[in-house]
């Protein structure tokens, strides 16, 4: 359980600064630090158990079907990284407190920082491959947010995007690799993975899996040739560079390689690839660190170089090399984070990071100068500092391997070369900033930073010296734990400063001497390099991104000309081709079911239906006539439903038809009355060919289905309707009971459509016609007498019918949908007959709440069944006896149906009544651009 807390506390901690942003900055910084500190203390509290040789684990199922567990482990490797992440993270927090300008949103910055911290802790502790990958991606995302923190700067945005693209692509490769690994072993559990090294090595997919995992790790840890994102990530605020891009995130790839070491590091392939990539990165990074003139650029490339060193050590893979790798992780994090922080201090105090403008700061900032010199010396590997010991171990490992056969001597030579370069750039860093006289005055006059801003640097510098002097007592225990976790067995080792005069010592001495020499001569080197054209990774990257964008655009442009007509025709063409292919593959169109007879009524109906459909098209330029034809189609469809045993559908279609026609007529009032002749003849021909082709496909499909056996699950509904749902009208029982969840969805959609329409009508700019298309003025006879009289008499009758239809719905054709539509029609008739003014005065309520109450009521009915321990929307019913009325039946489905009724009434009136009110002072929003005109609509 403690493990869960260690992993979760920082994650919860993300919320603290997010909510605490309104606090004063000191207080906000302080409360932000509380949870990470607790997690750090909890980690330390586990140390005794770990020293006893235990590996602590915690697991609960998360998504068992995927093999994803919420599983954490705490072994030596996790502890090593947890201490780095949380410890340095807290120092960075203190530093950032002083670094950020007062007006910057520190709450957001802290939140991102803690998010990163928690995801990194997650990687260190994950005990499940998938969980590990999840946290891995989270670090990419939080790093993106942090690099792009100064989002007003173009270089920050581009750097963030580049880092996300590279590490994100690496993350995808890693996922593929981890899935392959999981597939080989049949589990994503870390213990099983680590124990199955033999199985993995024997699998023929091993090279592929290894390649993918390494791709992910190299991209994250900025190994050659994916190193280019790291220098550009330096556009981030310096605390971020110090934390993510030197101490922790870039170590995630290395952590992964160390974590999976027992599982995948067995083969020759691993040794060769990882060592050579690491060596290349080491030299490449060191060379560019020597050439850069930006302070953070130097540190970034030196980070690349040191990451290469650690990778090479993991590649060599002997116990000694692994020990050296882990030790160097620790040492590098210590001195590099501190170096970044002092670079930030210099930047902060002088206003520049350019080496050519800096110089002579020794006098203005003596303490910073001393600290930076110590740290740079540790980076260079000067004896009596921590960097010396791990670099010595690196030389030993490089000299001791024979992986390259006859040319194995190359490795120690390259290692020494790397050492020489690292001495040279470290020396240059210190000398150019603090000792060399300045060529020009820096933008700000420099002085020492606030005491506490320097404190993290001081602490880390002291650690460098102490570990350098007393390696065994200070780091021995931790390294023992960590090597045990990586190698799977305890290993005998002794950390010491002095091993006697031997080859590694000689290599160190050569590196120191030649490094000083290189620095003295580096001016000539730079002049020599001027002859080469520099390649800016950002230009290459941005160029390729833009190139891809252009290609995509050009490709898209072939289809996309922002014309809806073209999209429609492409869509329909695809449908014709796909459905046509399906038809083509069928052996024969007609099935074996007996055919029905055609009688005179059917034939007449079908001909009328087709005629009115075609007439709708033929007259479509005269919109009103077209609309009348459309209404004929609707009525005939309704009759079709009635003819083929669907009374519910017939009723619904009939009432919807009325509402639709009123709606379309109202809308037509505000639209042009005629459609201009616009499309060319070929266009019309093409469209009609397409429409006819699809029509034929649909007809064929319909025929094919109709002539085949259509046995369905209908029997279940018919058999269970009365005993299970308590209703004789199966269609209604399906709607309110068997498939009530669907219906709930539908009325929700209906209510949402109503609300959306309400919003669309808001501030609508109207085109108000004063005459029809022939130039005749609209009739001044607003409310015809007969209609007024009849509608008023009809209203109670219609409402009664609606109530009747509603009540009988469960057993006879009817129900909430139909009753709702009838009520809506009755009320709309009132609006039409008497005008909005009159109706508004009598129907003084909003329709939105009605629709929402309907959906709410239906939902509550569903939830009600939970109270009785049944699943959502289980209905129940019973028979009751009242003295006068006699036996009757009540079902909870009735309440649900009432909800449907209310939703339908509310939504329909919300649409129609509001549309009708448009021309009156009651319109949904009175802030229109056109004053309400004098004429009424209906």
């Amino acid at each position, binding site marked *: 359980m403690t493990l869960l807390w260690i992993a979760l506390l920082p994650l919860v901690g993300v919320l603290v600064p997010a909510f605490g942003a309104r606090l004063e900055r000191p207080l906000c910084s302080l409360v932000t630090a509380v949870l990470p500190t607790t997690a750090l203390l909890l980690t330390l509290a586990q140390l005794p158990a770990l020293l006893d040789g235990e590996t602590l684990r915690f697991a609960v199922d998360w998504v068992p079907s995927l093999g994803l567990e919420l599983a954490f482990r705490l072994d030596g490797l996790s502890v090593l990284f947890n201490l780095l992440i949380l410890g340095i993270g807290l120092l960075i927090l203190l530093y950032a407190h002083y670094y950020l300008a007062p007006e910057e949103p520190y709450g957001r910055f802290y939140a991102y920082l803690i998010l990163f911290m928690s995801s990194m802790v997650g990687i260190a502790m994950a005990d499940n491959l998938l969980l590990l990958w999840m946290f891995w991606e989270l670090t990419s995302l939080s790093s993106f947010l942090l690099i792009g923190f100064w989002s007003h700067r173009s270089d920050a945005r581009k750097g963030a995007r580049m880092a996300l693209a590279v590490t994100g692509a690496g993350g995808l490769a890693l996922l593929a690799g981890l899935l392959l690994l999981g597939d080989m072993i049949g589990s994503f559990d870390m213990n099983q993975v680590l124990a199955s090294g033999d199985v993995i090595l024997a699998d023929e997919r091993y090279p592929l899996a290894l390649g993918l995992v390494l791709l992910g790790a190299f991209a994250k840890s900025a190994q050659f040739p994916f190193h280019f994102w790291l220098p550009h990530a330096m556009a981030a605020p310096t605390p971020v560079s110090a934390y993510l891009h030197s101490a922790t995130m870039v170590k995630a790839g290395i952590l992964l390689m160390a974590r999976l070491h027992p599982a995948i590091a067995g083969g020759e392939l691993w040794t060769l690839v990882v060592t050579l990539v690491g060596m290349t990165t080491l030299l490449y990074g060191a060379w560019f660190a020597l050439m850069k003139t930006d302070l953070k650029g130097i540190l970034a490339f030196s980070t690349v170089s040191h990451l290469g060193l650690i990778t090479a050590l993991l590649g060599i893979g002997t116990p000694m090399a692994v020990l050296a790798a882990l030790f160097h992780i620790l040492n590098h994090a210590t001195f590099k984070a501190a170096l970044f922080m002092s670079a930030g201090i210099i930047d902060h105090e002088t206003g520049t990071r350019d080496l050519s403008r800096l110089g002579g700061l020794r006098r203005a900032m003596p303490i910073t100068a001393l600290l930076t010199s110590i740290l740079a010396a540790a980076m260079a590997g000067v004896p009596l500092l921590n960097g010396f010991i791990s670099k010595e171990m690196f030389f030993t490992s490089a000299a001791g391997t024979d992986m390259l056969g006859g040319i194995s001597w190359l490795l120690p030579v390259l290692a020494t070369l790397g050492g020489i370069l690292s001495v040279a750039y470290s020396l240059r860093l210190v000398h150019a900033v603090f000792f060399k006289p300045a060529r020009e005055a820096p933008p700000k006059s420099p002085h020492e930073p606030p005491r506490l801003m320097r404190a993290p640097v001081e602490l880390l510098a002291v650690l460098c010296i102490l570990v350098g002097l007393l390696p065994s007592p200070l780091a021995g225990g931790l390294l023992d734990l960590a090597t045990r976790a990586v190698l799977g067995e305890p290993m005998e080792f002794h950390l010491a400063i002095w091993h006697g005069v031997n080859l590694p010592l000689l290599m160190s001495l050569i590196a120191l001497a030649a490094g000083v020499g290189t620095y003295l001569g580096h001016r000539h080197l730079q002049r020599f390099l001027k002859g080469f054209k520099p390649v800016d990774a950002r230009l290459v990257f941005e160029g390729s991104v833009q190139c891809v964008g252009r290609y995509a655009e050009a490709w898209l442009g072939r289809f996309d*000309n*922002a014309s*809806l*007509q073209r999209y*429609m025709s492409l869509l329909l063409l695809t449908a014709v081709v796909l459905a046509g292919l399906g038809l083509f593959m069928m052996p024969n169109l007609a099935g074996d079911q007996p*055919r*029905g007879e*055609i009688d005179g009524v059917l034939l007449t109906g*079908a001909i009328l239906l*087709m005629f009115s*459909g*075609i007439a709708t*098209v033929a007259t*479509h330029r005269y*919109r009103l006539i077209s609309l009348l034809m*459309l209404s004929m189609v*609707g009525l005939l469809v309704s009759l079709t439903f009635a003819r*083929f*045993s669907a009374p*519910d*559908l017939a009723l619904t*279609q009939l009432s919807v038809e009325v*509402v*639709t026609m009123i*709606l*379309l007529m109202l*809308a*037509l009032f*505000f*639209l*042009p009355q005629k459609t201009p002749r616009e*499309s060319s003849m070929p266009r019309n021909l093409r*469209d009609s060919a397409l*429409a006819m082709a*699809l*029509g*034929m496909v*649909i*007809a064929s499909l*319909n*025929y094919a289905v*109709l*002539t085949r056996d*259509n046995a369905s699950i*209908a029997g279940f509904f*018919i058999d269970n*309707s009365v005993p299970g749902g308590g209703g*004789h*009208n*199966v269609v209604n029982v399906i709607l309110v009971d068997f498939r009530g969840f669907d*219906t709930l969805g*539908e009325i929700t*959609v209906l209510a949402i*459509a109503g609300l*959306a*329409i309400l919003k669309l*009508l808001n501030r*609508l700019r109207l085109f108000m016609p004063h005459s029809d298309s022939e130039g005749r003025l609209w009739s001044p006879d607003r409310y015809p007498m007969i209609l007024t009289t009849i509608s008023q008499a009809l209203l109670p009758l219609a409402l009664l019918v609606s109530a009747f239809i509603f009540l009988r719905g469960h057993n006879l054709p009817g129900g909430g949908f139909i009753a709702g*539509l009838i009520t809506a029609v009755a009320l709309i008739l009132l609006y039409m007959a008497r005008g909005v003014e009159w109706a508004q005065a009598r129907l003084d309520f909003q329709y939105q709440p009605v629709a929402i109450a309907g959906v709410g009521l239906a939902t509550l009915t569903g939830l009600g069944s939970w109270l009785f321990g049944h699943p959502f929307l289980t209905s129940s019913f019973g028979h009751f006896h009242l003295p006068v009325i006699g036996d009757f039946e009540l079902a909870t489905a009735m309440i649900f149906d009432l909800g449907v009724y209310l939703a339908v009434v509310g939504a329909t009136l919300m*649409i129609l009544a509001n549309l009708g009110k448009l021309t009156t002072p009651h319109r949904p929003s009175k802030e229109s651009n056109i004053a309400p005109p004098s004429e009424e609509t209906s």
Partner: protein
Amino acid sequence: MESLYAITTGVLSACGLYLTLRGRTFPVVVGLTLLSYAVNLFLFSMGGLTTDGAVVVNGDGDYADPLPQALVLTAIVIGFAMTAFAVILAMRARGDMGNDHVDGRKHEDREETRR
């Protein structure tokens, strides 16, 4: 009977589809409505064409398939909501763009991209 039904559905769909390919909003809305009639007829017929078999259960009998009916019933109502939304969108587009073309662009913009 089956062939007649299928042909009717096909003709109605073709009419609706032709209208949806027009360039002005109102015919498109009319076309969508017409198409939804055709689709409803099509879906409805998935349960077969039964005469005198309304699914009001009273003992045994030859009933029509209630499931497509229930689905089409809601489809009709949703179809209305969709038509309403589309037509009011058309009104809004006319108000904001000054024309009733389906591309939803102001006149001068459209001329530009055509060039």
